[in-house]
């Protein structure tokens, strides 16, 4: 990852399946360490619970907070004749039409625009509503882009898209994405366009179960990836089996350590000279190898 021009940044997604395994800890450590030598942007895509900035209290906001908007319909009551075509077209159950009344639940609307197109009387027009916001920060040479879902809103994927789009405007050699937990649409949205995925697991039956699902998503999306085991120490046959069946490469492990747990409670970033250092370095080495192969390709 030497300084390059004319190359798209290497985009690396840190994900897990289970929450609380250490995604944010690893993503922040990777970003901080790599930012010593290359331009890094860290994108917090866990928009329901964005916590990477908790680890970077000195980060300073740069630029305006941008709202993420989606277009939802509004009804012109004079033009509407309650024909109901809009309600039939809506796949999200956001429109209810009764004689003389057309009600739109804008919280359920995903902004597909289908209702507006099917309305024969042009009684629906679109107006923007806020689903969330994106704010950029600077922490030394590291850029941080945080997506944040508006409390009360549920349109997670729109905010993830907004954060990725804002991030793409910030020049970088390496993009680290702190992804949401789970293995469904918020994760797939966060993995779009990623060159590599690092899944963080811990030695427990729960984590093993969720790793299987997350690894399957990564595989089906055709993204190469590796696994870091956090809080390692106890043997977990379930996790061993999940890793063996994941099709992903074991990259390293961070030992369970009471001091690390204490530092984690205070949101202190992993230190490269601490117990997590070797695993972070192993991931960076894997990324360097990937980058080298990309450049020769």
């Amino acid at each position: 990852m030497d300084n390059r021009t004319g190359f798209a940044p290497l985009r690396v997604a840190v994900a897990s399946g289970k929450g609380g395994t250490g995604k944010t800890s690893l993503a922040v450590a990777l970003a901080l360490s790599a930012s010593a030598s290359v331009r890094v942007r860290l994108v917090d895509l866990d928009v329901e619970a964005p916590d990477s900035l908790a680890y970077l209290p000195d980060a300073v906001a740069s630029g305006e907070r941008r709202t993420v908007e989606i277009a939802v319909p509004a009804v012109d009551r004079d033009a509407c004749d309650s024909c109901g075509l809009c309600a039939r077209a809506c796949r999200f159950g956001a429109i209810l039409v009764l004689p003389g009344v057309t009600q739109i639940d804008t919280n359920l609307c995903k902004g597909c625009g289908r209702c507006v197109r099917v309305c024969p009387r042009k009684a629906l027009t679109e107006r923007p509503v806020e689903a969330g916001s994106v704010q950029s920060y600077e922490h030394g040479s590291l850029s941080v882009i945080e997506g944040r879902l508006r409390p009360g809103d549920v349109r997670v994927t729109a905010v993830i898209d907004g954060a990725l789009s804002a991030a793409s405007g910030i020049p970088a050699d390496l993009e680290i994405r702190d992804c949401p937990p789970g293995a469904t649409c918020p994760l797939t949205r966060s993995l779009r366009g990623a060159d590599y995925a690092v899944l963080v697991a811990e030695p427990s039956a729960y984590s093993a179960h969720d790793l299987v699902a997350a690894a399957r998503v990564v595989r089906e999306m055709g993204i190469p990836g590796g696994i870091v085991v956090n809080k390692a120490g106890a043997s977990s046959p379930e996790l061993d089996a999940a890793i063996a069946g994941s099709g992903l490469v074991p990259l390293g492990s961070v030992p369970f350590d009471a001091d690390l747990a204490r530092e984690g409670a205070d949101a202190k970033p992993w230190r490269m000279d601490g117990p997590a250092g070797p695993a972070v370095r192993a991931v960076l080495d894997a990324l360097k190898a990937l980058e080298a192969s990309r450049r020769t390709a």
Partner: protein
Amino acid sequence: MKTIVVASGKGGAGKTSFAASLMAWLHGQGIQAVAADADVDAANLGLALKAGVPVERRTYIAGDAREVRAEACTGCGSCAAVCRFDAISLAAGVARIDPFSCERCGACADVCPTGAVRSVPAHAGELLRSPVAYGEALAHGELVPGEDASGKLVRQVRESAARIAGPAGLVVVDAPPGIGCPAMAAISGADLLVVLMEAGASGIRDAARLLDNAAIAKVPAVAVLNKAGLSPERDREARDLARDRALDVLGRIPFDAAFRRAAERGGTWLDSGSPGTVEAVSEACAAVAARAGLVPAISAAGATPERTLP
């Protein structure tokens, strides 16, 4: 029917372990609750409750997926132009729909001039009912990885649990992390929300975000602190947050390395074999059950049991 929901905002805060422990504690009191695993993205409650082979399976269909019949596609690009979700690309003159990005709105099929976009029912997963070691049953869902964990499946899991519990029954819901659609579907209409607050910087931020939600603010809520004692400052912040949001702290579960290792095996915290943890968890369960009106309030329960670490 009563519904107790365990939620946290942050993932890994101990929701599943606490929900399972509450089921086991109630079981010990002769109260058989129905568990609902609303964390359909990472459904682990069955592991904790030692669930058996499902006795009931129903297919869960999440609307219609769309496919392009390549032989009928002229590559005009109308579908890609109308798609608001950037899910359609043209490769070699044929449209391709990325199933991971598609929101299944159907706009592409509306505008295709040759009818090349066809609908196929999306088999998104299954709704299950399984026997458990502690309680009456577990209602849960299994999603195909990558599927939309819509609130719809969460609602169906809750409905299924409610049916099993019956009008006089009790449902314990293990909510998904976050504050989005699945979390809201899991929490809405609860009789009691237990906010499991991890006493760490991230856990406190995420619990605050959860409580910022106006809809959640209407639900009667209490707090239980988990992983307490790692940092005195964070413990204080967690208590401050609970006080600011008018939540009684009904329990304080200390961070305990030995118990953590026991929990790695699955099972509930009451099986952890760590006496301090078992006592703290039992007290928290008793206080939550008393607050929900399931057992008479005993001396400490329902107040703010203060426990200090040895």
